[in-house]
Structure formats: C-alpha cells, structure tokens
C-alpha cells in the first residue's frame, strides 16, 4: 500500500528555447555594472575617508583647544612683559637712558589711501 494516494499529474512539456543575446547589449550591461561597481567603490571610499576624518575630529578639536589655551597664555605673558610698569622700569635702565619720547610735531603721519 502506498503511503500517498496516487494521483496523476500531467506535466506540460517544456519547450526550451535558446535566447541569444546580442554582444552589444552584453557590453553595455558590463559597462553599466562596472560603472555601478566603481561608483559604489568610490562611495564606500568616500565614506571611509569621512569616517576616518570624523574619528580624527575630536583629537583635532582637543589639539586646537590646547593651542588656543597656549596662545592665550602667551598673549598674557606678552601683555605682562609689555606692561607700562615693566616698560617704565626698562626705560630707567642705563642702556635705554638716552631714549626720549618724540614730540608730536616730529612724528610724520602718512595717510595710506
């Protein structure tokens, strides 16, 4: 006894026809696929570069911050060095004693157009 009820199924006969694609179309498809692959590769490359840059951003921000802080510190040092009190003390030193403040009439001011 068969486990299954036997039924007769008629399978239509397949008629396989060979389709011959023209070479031109194949070439075009190939070019398209290549262009697509290239664009995809390029896009991924760009994404990678951007990711790399994004990873670098916090480090650069930190560096900029450090430079800014150093810049501010140096600026403070310069202002401190050029403070009036310092300059007055410098002016009293023997090597600068010959220096005099110029009279306003002796200063030639040139207007740059």
């Amino acid at each position: 006894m068969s486990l299954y009820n036997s039924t007769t199924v008629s399978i239509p006969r397949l008629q396989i026809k060979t389709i011959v694609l023209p070479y031109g179309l194949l070439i075009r498809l190939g070019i398209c696929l290549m262009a697509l692959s290239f664009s995809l590769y390029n896009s991924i490359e760009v994404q990678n570069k951007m990711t790399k840059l994004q990873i670098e951003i916090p480090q650069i921000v930190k560096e900029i911050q450090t430079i800014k802080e150093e810049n501010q510190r140096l600026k403070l040092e310069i202002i401190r060095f050029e403070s009036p009190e310092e300059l007055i003390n410098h002016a009293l030193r023997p090597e600068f004693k010959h220096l005099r403040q110029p009279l306003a009439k002796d200063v030639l001011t040139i207007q740059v157009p």
Partner: protein
Amino acid sequence: MKPCSKDLKRLVIVALFTFFLFSLLVLQFYKIQIIEKEKWVKIAKRQHQLVISERARRGLFYSNTSIKEGHPQAPEPLMVDVPAFHLYADPLSIPEALRDVLSTTICHILKLPKEDQAHIRAQFDKKSRSRKLALWLAPDEKKAIQNFFLPFAKEHKIARNALFFIQDYKRSYPFGKLLGPLLHTVREEKDPVTGGLVPTGGLEMLFNKYLTGKDGKRVILRSPRHPLDTGKVITPPENGADVYLTINQYLQAIAEEEIEKAVIRAEAKGGWAVMMDPYTGEVLALAQYPFFDPTNYRSFFNDPKLQEHTKIKAVTDPFEPGSTMKAITIAVTMQANAELKKEGKKEIFSPNEKVETRNTHFPGRSKPLKDLQNYNYMNLSLGMQKSSNIYMARMIQRVIDAKGADWYRKTLQDIFGFGIKTGVEIPSESVGLLPTPGKKHPSGALEWSAPTPYSLAMGHNVLATTFQMLRAYAIIANGGLDVQPTLVRKIVKTRADGTEKILYEHAPKGAKQLLDPGISRDLIQVMKYVTKPGGSAWRADIPGFTEAGKTGTSEKIVNNQYSKKDHISSFVGMAPAKNPRFVLMIVIDEPVKRFIPGVGKNQMGGVCAAPVFRLIGERALAYLGVEPDDPYGYPKGDPRHDAKKADLADEIQGLLRLNQAWNGGG
C-alpha cells in the same frame, strides 16, 4: 479540487483578522509617528543626546591707546580671560580603599595646606556623583592630575571620569594692580541661582549687563563607543560686549607710581590723582594709593580697614576743597562783573584794583579772617598768588551786595556743578554739599547763614568731590565750555560672524558756553602766578611748560568737628596753560602734620601735593609728545634756564616789587 465553503469562510476570517491587526498596527504607528511625535522625539533625544551649555565670553575692558598723536596702537586689554579648571570627583565610583591615596595625592600635586586636605578627603565620603574638590586650577595643574589619575584609574579598574574637570575662564590682570579700584573683579564663586559671575564692584558691576554674555547650547551624542561627533552648536553663545575706556595705561602707571611715592613721602593715610582732558571730559588717569589688587580681593573685603581701598575716593569722599575754591570765587566775581556790565550797572571789581586787606572783619563772623601772613593791600594777581582768604572774602562780599546770595549759590551750582553729581560712570558718586539758604543740617543748624558766603569763598562750608573740582577747573581750562567727565569711549559687541555692533559711543555734543572765554583766559593768566616764584605752589612748576593751578589745604571733619591734626591737601591745575592737554588734581589724605626745616609745613597743599603735579605733568607731557611752550622755564642749573626769557619773568618781578611796596614782603 474545489475548496469547500467552510474553508473559504475560515480563510476570509483569518484574512480579515490579519487585516484588522495590521490596521491596529498602522493606527499605532500613526499615533506614535504623527499624533505623539513631539513626545517621542523628546524622549528619544533625552536618551541619545546630551545638551551642554556653550560658555559665552565675558566682555573685557580696553585701555585708550589713541591719545598719542602719530602712534597708532592696537587696543590693549586691561585683563585677559584665561582658561581655568574646576576639579570634581564622583565619590560613588571610587572604592573606599582608594580614597585615602587619591585624596593625599591630589593635595600633594596641588600643594594644598593641611586645613584644606581634611576638607578634600571628606568630599570622597559623600554620597554624591559630583563633589567639588578644587577651583580655578591652571592647565599645568590639570595636566599633572591627569598624568597621575589616568594610569591610576586603569591600574585599579575605576572609571576614568571618577575625577573630572569643568572648564571655565578666569579674569587675569596682566598689569597687576593697575586701575584695580576702578575695574574691580568678579568673585570666584558664581551666583548659586543664575550661575552667573558676581562682580565685586567698580566698573565690573556698573557695566555687568553689557559685559555678561548669553551662554549657547551644544548637543553631544551620549555614546561612549562612537565619539565621532564633537557636538553641534544649536544656539551659538553671545559674547559679552567689550568696554573701551578713556584711560591710558601709561599715564595711569605714571600717576600710580607718583601718587604712591607722594603718599609715602608725606606719611599720609592715602592719596589720589585724577587726570582729565578738559575739552572732551575723558578721564586719562585715575590713580589711588593704597592700591587695591583685584587678584587678592578677598583679603580687602575681609578686613574692614582695607575695605575702604576698594572704593574710588575721588567720587565717594567729598571734602572741603579749601583754597582750590578760590579760582572759582574769582570766576564768580568776574561773571558778576560781566553781568553787571551787561545790565549797564557799575562793575564791582577790577583785576588791578588795590584792595585793602587789613580789615579782617566780615558781617556775621564772630572771628576775624586770617591769612598766612598779614597783607595790607592786594590786587587779583597777588590775592591769587598768596592765596589770600581776606581778598577772596572781600570779593564775595561785593558779589553778595550786588547780586545776592541766591545768585551766588545758583552760579556755583549751574556753572560749576557744585552740589550735583558729575555723572561720571563710577558707582556711589557723592553729590557733595552746597549749602542752601533756608535749609537746615541734620543737627538743626541753618546751612546758609550770614558768614557762609565768606567761608564758601575760601572753600569752607562746602563739600566737593575730586571730580566736581576737576570739572569746574576743566570749564575754566577749555574756555568756559560745559564738559561731562567720562570713563567710557565706546561699548562694542562682537557678533559670532566677527562683525561689530557699537552699543554706546561717547561723542561730545556741541557744548554749552557756561563761562565767557575772556573770563577763562584772565583766570588762567592769574593762576599762572601760583606756580611761579612767590606763589604758594612754586613746586608745581613743570620745567619747560607753562601751567596754571591752585593749592588747597583744609582741615578734615572728624566726629562733626574740624580736626586740627588731620588735613586734606590738594593741588588742581592744568598744563600747558594755553590749550591745556589735561587738568590734573592731586589729593593727599591726612599727610602727617609737621614742619620740615627749609621746606615748610608738610600738610600744606603746596608742599605735599604740588610737587606731584609737577612730577606727573612732566612725564605725562613727555609721553604725549607735547612741545615745551616755556623753553627757558627750566630750573637753575639746567643749561636751558634763562630767568629773563622764561614765561612771566617780567610780570613776576613786577609782582614781587608790588608786594614789597604794599606789604613789605617777598
């Protein structure tokens, strides 16, 4: 085979049920995505994003670098905001066993005193996620702590952010104490409610609303694994506006140096010097000694004795001006003369008139007036040069007789600004005191009685601030034009894109003519004798320049009584006498009372204040590049000295001869 109707029915039910479920799902999506969008977006943002505030920079004060002709210079900041860090701990993420080591090492790195070490250790035992350990650390200190802590955290497997820093900006003063009492500073502790900076006083307090910026907002991702985004600024910070002052840092340094020396020399309690441009009213220097160092503000505010050094006494402390008022008395007399002439009436005085000064009695006064010496006769030049009380009182007696007391008071107030604030941008400006007829003092005594005008004539019974006196002298110096003392040139706000917006700019408008230019010219001419040989302030004579001014010495009022021991000595003058570059007032508070052989009484304005005018004036004029207008007016011994060609040489000799003839004196 055909499906049976029962199966079909079941299929339809299942399909409908599925459709119903999908519909519910769609409806739920609609509810979440459309109806409750805002709510869910908010929750999502709260979960994934963190909004932190983007600190706005507090505005700065800049000095005036454009007063020197032909020397263009970039604006110079009087303070710089340098980054500083606050150290915090998250005690809950630090195991108990490590707290001692951490606390001790931090204290060692920061070199904290023993009393602070116990406080730091106690913070680690608090049940909190954020405890303040140390404030205002320098970048080096931050780095030192990080260098220790990060390897320590790795070794003991504790969170890297168990110790963390919050960045802030600290006011630093590259010029140290320069201009300290005027600028003041901001407290180290912020306002607990607003989180804003709290000014300690001075210009920081007065311009706080301009200096304070508006913090911005930055969104950062709450994702420790993906530190790709450093944050997006959603609201850019608005920096505070910068205030450009009229004060020049070099003139200020000169004034501070000289006033310090003068106070020490006179063994005085203190002193101050204010220099102003008489035409624009711009204050060029405002020095005060003892100094107030803003970086050390706590010690000044914690000590009641030092607290008074934190205020600008040139506006807060009025005093009896004494003889410096005599120039105003003569100006009032000249003004009365001019008005009487206009009205077609008889003039009350002439500068060359020989006025008798032997009679020292005046109506209403119980005691006769006194001069330093007895003089028989005087004219205007002698009266001013010798600073005669009697001559001045005699002039005012004529003014009162001709124009009345109300006119006299009105002139002092309306033209010279006594009894009203000058409006200079300094907090707590005193109005001073100009007596009013009919008004009573708190003691019940009348402010104005019969002898009051004679007292006013020599600068008694009136209280004036240094700025009121300076403004009055500036009016004389600039040819009689009204002038408003000011400390601010402009207030500028710099936008995020770098463009500037001017919020305020000082532009002197067409000034009102308060005094006739002729009166101003004559008065300056007379005041020039004061600084020449025979004058009370010959020590104020600036070599190579002409100058005009007047000394003043008055007794201080202590416990509502004139003190015989404590004096206020002053000198106010201008240089050069023609087209003055500045008016300068020197005040020495409580110089020690003693006689210096060969010099005179130490407490007199001509001895302790006048030389400071010369010293500051000489250096200031050289700095400004002003050409000497008295090329022979140098002291004896200087190769440029020529007594015959010096300014007023003949007039001085004439005046000496006149004094000899009238009073028998030199």
